[in-house]
């Protein structure tokens, strides 16, 4: 597994694919909150890389991709 994957502490959401299951919000509470319809709102915050990995695998719509915090 490439190193960049393991270190990813953020996710990018594919909004077209997302079906609003909210798995991402449950696993990544720091960066994802849900809007009133249950779709994710992404904030600029980091969650533990293991949780990012889990969310990417568990998103039922496969709408999550690992991404890294933008360089300051």
């Amino acid at each position, binding site marked *: 597994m490439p190193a960049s994957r393991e270190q990813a502490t953020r996710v990018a959401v594919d909004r077209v694919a997302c079906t609003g299951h909210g798995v991402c919000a449950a696993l990544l509470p720091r960066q994802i909150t849900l809007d009133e319809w249950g779709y994710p709102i992404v904030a600029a915050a980091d969650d533990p890389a293991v949780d990012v990995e889990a969310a*990417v695998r568990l998103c039922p719509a*496969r709408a999550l991709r690992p991404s890294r915090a933008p360089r300051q």
Partner: protein
Amino acid sequence: MNELLWYFSRATGVISMVLLTTTLVLGMTLSGRRSARPATSTVVAGLHRWLGLGMVVFVVGHVTTAIVETYVSIGPLSALVPFTAGYQPLWVGLGTIAFDILLAVAVTSALRHRISERVWRGVHLASYLLWPTALVHGFLLGTSDQPLLRLVTVACGVVGMLAVSWRIQATHHDREHRRSVTAQGWS
């Protein structure tokens, strides 16, 4: 020893059937759910994934012991190639087909986030074939002469069919909403 293997093979077969049915029900709730709390979806998604992948261990145990024991003649080839067993070739063959599908579904799901969505979805849809195939195999071979085991199989069948029929009539709440909004037309 041989007898022990035979019982082990039956036991792992029944456990696999129950796990497969549970995984099916979880999958149906996941893909057909109207609205659920994020925590609930997460638990369901996690269980669907881990029970489904974990089941492979029991099925491999079931297949291996069925081959190793010599009470009935099932050769190693029958693990992957259907209808080659000396014993009940047709019903064992159904099990082989189910095993092949299961391996494909498990591998593509383990790698789901790395392969294309179309490939994953196409293979995953075969689960609808996997479940009844495995159940008929289990009913006719392992459990038809044991009232209690037969009850387990029938219960799995009923629960699974309820879940599938619920799934068929369930639509995504947003899809309904979208449809009603489109129906209103432009004003």
